[in-house]
């Protein structure tokens, strides 16, 4: 069995299983903590507040746009670039068709890949530079923040190296870095990709009951 076959075979199964089961375990674990019912009389709908909360926090509001511009721009550059690559990069679509979902969809052209990758890299690097230079972020950051940034960076870098599919080892290297990322995901702050929905929802519901969604 070649290195590529290992990364696309048993290692992929292991990593994706840890990713799915670990993330599910963590989500179910959080939900199982439960909450005491709030018996105060609501002024408005908690559910509507929870829904509104999902959208409101996509952009910082209330007069912070200037102070948070760096993070807002870099954050969106990274996330939008990364999602474009994940979902529309031709090799990803083919891999997901063959190994996960069984069907394909429209893919982005090569120039789209390059552009998305550049935007995502720029965003990620800008965010990391801020993490190591801004006094607030230095104070609150821990090893998990840096490991997550670097694993993501490596997965993206090896993905770019493998784009031309010039060598099996480059593809295998990309698979390996993605698999490490997938295994790390449920144990780390990368879980924010899922838990943000709960966080925004709980806060939205809290304020929704009070008739205001700030």
């Amino acid at each position: 069995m070649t290195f590529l076959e290992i990364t696309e075979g048993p290692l992929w199964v292991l990593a994706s299983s840890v990713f799915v089961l670990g993330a599910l375990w963590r989500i179910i674990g959080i939900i199982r903590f439960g909450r005491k019912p709030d018996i105060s009389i609501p002024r408005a709908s908690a559910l509507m507040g929870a829904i509104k909360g999902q959208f409101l926090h996509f952009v910082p509001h209330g007069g912070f746009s200037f102070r948070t511009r760096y993070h807002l721009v870099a954050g969106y550059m990274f996330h939008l670039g990364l999602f474009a690559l994940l979902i529309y990069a031709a090799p990803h679509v083919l891999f997901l068709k063959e190994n996960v979902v069984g069907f394909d969809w429209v893919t982005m052209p090569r120039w789209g890949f390059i552009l998305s990758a550049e935007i995502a890299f720029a965003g990620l690097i800008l965010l990391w530079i801020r993490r190591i230079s801004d006094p607030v972020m230095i104070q609150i950051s821990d090893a998990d923040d840096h490991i997550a940034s670097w694993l993501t960076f490596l997965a993206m870098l090896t993905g770019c190296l493998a784009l031309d599919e010039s060598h099996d080892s480059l593809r295998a290297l990309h698979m390996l870095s993605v698999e490490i990322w997938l295994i790390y995901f449920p144990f780390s702050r990368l879980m924010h990709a899922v838990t943000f929905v709960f966080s925004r929802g709980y806060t939205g519901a809290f304020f929704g009951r009070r008739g205001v969604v700030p």
Partner: protein
Amino acid sequence: MSVSAAIETFVNNIDASAAAYLDSCVHCGQCAQACHFYETTGDVRYTPVWKLEPMRRVYKRHKAPLSGIKKMFGLVPDEVDEDMLKEWEELIYDSCTLCGRCTIVCPMGIDIAGLVRKSREAMVAAGLVPEGLNAAAKRVLEIGRPLGIKPEIMAKIVGEQAEEVGIPIELNKVGVDYMIILSAMEVLNFYEVIGALARIFKQAGVTWTISTEAYEATNVGIQMGDKEIARTLVQRIVDAAEKLQVKYVVSPECGHAYSALNWEGPNLVGKNYDFEVIHILELLDQLVREGRIKTKSELDQRRVTFHDPCQIVRRGGIVDEPRNLLHMVSDNFIEMENYGVANICCGGGGGVSSNSRAEELRIKSFGAKKKQLDAVGPEALVTACGNCRNVLEEAIDEFGMDLPVLGLTELVAEYLDD
């Protein structure tokens, strides 16, 4: 000090929402941009999410899903210890007013103020509470009142106010519609509000009373994070209201009192009340809409602006009512930048004003509010919280500003056409 009691309380306080919050934070630090303590000092320790560090550590070590596996590999944070709790006592009590402005800026929508409240409960369990709050709690338990104002003194104050406005005020009257409660700061410093209410209610034809068994809405238990004291104080109001068989209890111009009675109260005493809670601003706005309050045609000409009390507006949901009332009495009402739900705290909420250790920091943090005020250059500042009013007056003096601070109910009464 009991570290284990604090850890146990942290663990017990982490429910699904707290876990989701602690698991969602990506340490972006944006919350610092919303905090008046960070803005005015530049001290990174005042970053709101950093104030949650003991709770985060306990969660990640003892309760987070998959923490067992991480513990096997030594990948969980160190145990919270005595030194950490002592250090964080200041961060949790002195540099957080529970204003909740950080929640607005948080991309994950984390309710940091709510988690600081929960952290305070752990501090109470550990026995680490600022002296000012402890003293207020002691007075509540021993005398029954946070500022020590006994019923006979209260009756005297009410009598003097009744005489001043020429309207009799009956204490402990059974079967009226409304029972008024006041913030301790109103009773102590701004008791003219009692006369103002008497005039407004007379014109509106409202039947009301004040109970000598529960006239202070201030809830030091909520501020310090002691649920048992908070429950005792809410129960005292509930008992008095039920004894007088009133239909409504009017929450006063006091931020956390509204939160304590209306939002947390039923959960603390474990049942819904036999009466409704209505905030004084809601009641006044309702009376205006029903045409029961009439004001003079000549309005206040001063350039006035409104300071939104955090617990009434941002975390209370009463946003439009004070503005409706101000437009009714003022010809020159101007909003500050980021008014309403994004308004900046006075600096003394959440028990900070009762904590003498925090005084210097509180005054300094007013710098953020001052910037807001300077941008609109008001001739008078109106608010709807006795504590905000007191804190603002003190800070305005300290900063050498010439700006009167007015209570909204009193302003409405001043322009009554009676």
